[in-house]
């Protein structure tokens, strides 16, 4: 029984542009991953709980407006509080460089800006999965 990479894709905040998340969901599916799409206007609490219940490996959050600076770090915080800090948290959207740097410090592993190739995101996730190997534990 092959292990399948499970990914949660969520849009935080009020922004409702879905093109990026639509494209990435389809690309990840076609790369053999199981994509849980939890929809728009998610709060950090919703994202953290969903990630836990779905036991995803990866959480991809998208924001094209202001939500990233407040919401992304909050998700990481909530996951750690609940003992689910072993998940890969990545972000994407229109995010200025200085914000990206701040997010990396707050536990977001990687920030993909708009225009990143889906193949690059897939390769990144696959490399991360391979890197942590089978030694994943609770």
């Amino acid at each position, binding site marked *: 029984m092959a292990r399948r990479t499970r990914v949660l894709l969520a849009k935080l*905040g*009020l*922004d*409702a*542009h*879905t*093109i990026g*998340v*639509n*494209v990435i*969901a*389809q*690309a990840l599916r076609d790369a053999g991953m199981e994509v849980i*799409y939890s*929809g*728009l*206007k998610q*709060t950090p609490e919703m994202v953290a709980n969903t990630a836990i219940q779905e036991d995803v490996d990866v959480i991809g959050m998208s924001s094209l*407006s*202001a*939500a990233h*600076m*407040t*919401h992304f770090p909050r998700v990481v915080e909530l996951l750690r509080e609940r003992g689910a800090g072993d998940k890969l948290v990545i972000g994407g959207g*229109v995010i*200025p460089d200085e914000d990206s740097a701040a997010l990396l410090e707050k536990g977001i592993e990687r920030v993909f*800006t*708009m*225009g990143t*190739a*889906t*193949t690059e995101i897939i390769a990144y996730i696959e490399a991360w999965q391979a890197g942590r190997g089978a030694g994943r534990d609770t």
Partner: protein
Amino acid sequence: MSDAKSIEQGREAWQRDTLEPRLAEAPERKHPFTTQAMGWPVDRLYTPQNLDAIGFDYVRDVGFPGEYPYTRGTDPNGYRSDLWTMMQVSGFGTGEDWAERGRYMLDQGLTGLFLEYDLPTTNGLDSDHPLAVGEVGRAGIAVDSLDDMEALLDLPFDKLQRLTSICNGPQTVNLAMILAALKRRGIDPGSFTLQMPNAILIEYTCVGRYIFPPDHGLRVAIDALEYSIQNHPNWIPISVVSAQLYAAYANPVQELAFSFAIAKEYLDAALARGFDIDTLAPYFSFITGIDMDFFEAVGKLRAYRKVWARIMREEYGAKRPESEQLSLTASPGTMSLTLQQPLNNIARLGIQMLACVIGNGGHAMNTPLHDEAHALPTEDAIAVGAAVQNIVAHETGVADTVDPLAGSYYVETMTRRIEDAVFEELAKIESMGGALAAIKTGYFQKELARQQYERTRAIEDGSRVLVGVNHSVREGEKRNIEIHKHDPDVEHRQIRKLERLRAERDGIATRRALDRLRDAARSGENLVPPCLEAVNAYATHGEMCGALRDVFGEYHPDSLTTGIS
């Protein structure tokens, strides 16, 4: 004049004696050549034979400018009398911030302005709502109350021809705010044109700034439309913003077909309220986006006018020319702009602007800004955007003759091909029950999601060239473009203003006005008058939307209607 037979003979000889030797020494660089968005094959050469093949008839297919079927344009004199209204989208910060920027833009020679609101406003929330954190004044202007709108409209109205207010979800609330603010400023509503895209069905299809479920969303839109036509007959109370479909990667055929299906949904809803088609149709306008394939763009603009004219005459039995004349605003597309090498975008904007004018793209045009892919536009970018329009208008000569590409074998073939395909797609949507049904079942959304994925893959695998992205890439390129900085103070200021307002207003009067709004929502009467009462009783934007939400409920798309199930 050469006849069909001599053309055929000539072509055969050319192919044999002239072309083939050339092909033998230099094979073609692509096979096949296709159009960018539709993927239609592009022939080596278009000749009168192509026009014969589609049974091209000058009078029926093209005619004369200002006359049915308006393929050559709706103004009989093209741009020789009047150039288009030059507009630019820009909204951010508080009302005062925006008014300052608006004055700057009018000083640059622009004659129209766009009001874009921040996400809390378009989602019907006040600036102090928990979901508004970090969003206030960020992606547009924050408008919580009449005071904000009044500050916003501190503009030299003598220089302003057209003001476009984009607040599709709570359009009646927004309209009431504008009306009340104009009154307080003493501005004659007849002195300029207010354009409300009022484009709620587009929001459900791809943009996502909706509040209520689709049926109620449509009702709110039609209320605003009805009120505006009855009270401010010189305004433009509805626009089908097909540019948003295009920005969501709709191809030209989808863009036109979905837009017209949506327009028909609005028309039918308004006709059901007793309007006459010839009163109603002239109020409809369309806002389209232009992509980089030059001939697809020109063909699209020409087919756009022709299909609308035919729908009006053939399906709705319209009698007045004004009903058949498509009112169009064209804008170079934000979607073709790249984050990489942003200065390249100025070239793209210039070319698209050229297609807009050559294709007779309408009475108003706006340029997006070359740094738009980054964040919000800077003042430099606004100046360059205005310059692009002026260069095309005054330096190129393309605005000096009407529809200069008419009769081009390629352009006429393209125009007809788009026209036929649009009618085919429209028939398909009709068989599903129309645009509202197509939205509710997720058909539009799914089609767009598929296009988005395919187009992305084409760029990633290089089959679609984007300079700076997959061609002529400069390694280690530094993106040192200036990005408009968000001012975190805006949020605090708005919240303080709201607190003061709530403390100072007559709370009982406000509550009574909101109850009255709820009653109106239940009863089905037009929502604009009770919204006006509530605005004047200092109910906030979020409170009014909340009252409507109490009655209509809130829309949450599911896996089907998000399009990616």
